[in-house]
């Protein structure tokens, strides 16, 4: 019963590890939050419920990064193999940050804002452990 889980960041991140993109919906005013919020900032209600996202959306903004973070360098990205950081507007309304894959990162001019995307959970092996990060790819 997902509804019984507390509305914490840890539980949100654990859902991602289980390849589920979850948000919380305010039972009072209906506002939807992804990532999770425990308190509705529209109506101040703390009466929330978990809600699973369909994992569809469109590209709101992005960049192709050649000088990356230590985590992405560890994942194998560098100047010759850039990666895309993106902001995605979900079909349900909220926006999320995620890596954009399945595009030509070395030709950012071919990546179009507004393009339809779907969720793709990205598995990375680091020191023998599999970590799952939120990603999106073109439909």
């Amino acid at each position, binding site marked *: 019963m997902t509804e019984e889980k507390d509305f914490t*960041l840890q539980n949100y*991140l654990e859902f991602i590890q289980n390849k589920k993109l979850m948000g919380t919906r305010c039972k009072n005013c209906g506002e939807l939050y992804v*990532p999770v919020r425990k308190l509705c900032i529209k109506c101040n209600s703390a009466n929330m419920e978990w809600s699973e996202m369909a994992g569809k959306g469109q590209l*709101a*903004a*992005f*960049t*192709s*990064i*050649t*000088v*990356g*973070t*230590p*985590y*992405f360098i560890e994942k194998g*990205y560098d*100047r010759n193999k*850039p*990666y*895309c*950081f*993106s*902001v*995605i507007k979900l079909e349900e309304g*909220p*926006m*999320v*940050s*995620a*890596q954009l894959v399945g595009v030509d990162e070395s030709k*950012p001019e071919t990546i179009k*804002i*507004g393009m339809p995307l779907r969720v793709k959970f990205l598995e990375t092996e680091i020191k023998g452990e599999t970590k799952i*990060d*939120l990603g999106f790819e073109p439909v």
Partner: protein
Amino acid sequence: MAKLARKVALVGAGMSKFGRNFPLKRNPDMWVEAWLSAVKSVDNGIEPKDIDACYVGNYSSDLFNHQGHLGPQMANLVGLTPKPASRFEGACASSGIALRQAIIAIASGIHDVIVVSGVECMNELPTALVTDTLATASDSLFEYPAGATFPGLYATIASAHFHKYGTTAEDLMYVGIKNHENGAENPFAQMQQSIKQMMESKMARYEKEGRSVPDWKDEFDFLKSSSNPMIASPLRLFDCSLVTDGAACLFLAAEDIARNFTDDPIWITGTGQGSAALSLHDRESLTSFIATREASRQAYEMSGLKPKDIQIAEVHDCFTIAEILAMEDLGFYEKGKAAEAVRNGDTKRDGPFPINTSGGLKSKGHPVGATGAAHAVEIFKQMRGIAERNRQVKFDVERALTHNLGGSGGTCVVTIYQK
């Protein structure tokens, strides 16, 4: 927005040389350098006994230098202990917040004179760790795991601005070229060269070394070449501010005693501060900073001035796109119109509305926690008519504004100054 209960004057301002020092200068070294520079600027002199409190803006000495608790550390360097000494943190807006809190404390009547400062020593760490430390000002739970770097977040904003308003990478180059032209005239700047000068010296070096000399007709050719590598599309190296060590120092005094220090006080007539969600995805707009709009709304209302009344401004150009957003969000230009103004040369120091005469963060440098105070140093010089070399604007500055932004827009402080 209420007026300040008591007027507050800027009576002195100075800074250390910005840059990368060999051998290394640590926070206390640079802080004293800025203090001495500010003391020298006070017409009738100022001494520690005149000062009631010491406010220090600093972003991340904890991670950059393994040192917290900078307030008393700095205060003691000039004999201000046991007076109150505090550090303020708001990422790149840290000393803007220190300035605002000093204004509020003086206006309240609690203190009469406060030394406001900012200091950051970033080069004690290797570059990769500097970048990682800066990333802690963005959202570490959601943006960082998705690969966000600081240039990456501003590049993301740029992509949305380009898409919505047709702004181009070339527009951004005009911002960098202008700011470097100003920084070349600032003896305290980290990079005291125009982009054209850098291009020409590179060509001369290639020629001397017998290598094939690149066929660059102007700065734009140079900026579009591999000499200006992509960092995070569409932002290249010359769209990014610098990794800088430095400090800046200001003296604020209450109206009743300001004239003890100078016959020529600069009045701070407006202060405002705004905030926004740390994550870009949590904001309503990707092309406008709500924290800037809120901070400037408060400052304009308090001062009774409108954007068109402001004659010069120092805005937070941590990336070239940030100067474009600031010009729009501060109300100087309509949304989507700032790039055209930059192309027209309106914001050059001989243009109708000079912006970042100091060289900006791009050329003067960006010691994160010192930047807000350094903005005020440039305004002090321009309003006094004492800006060094050839960068003094050609008209009397009666009304000026500073804009200090934290992180990727999570904090903003706006200050308005009048003669």
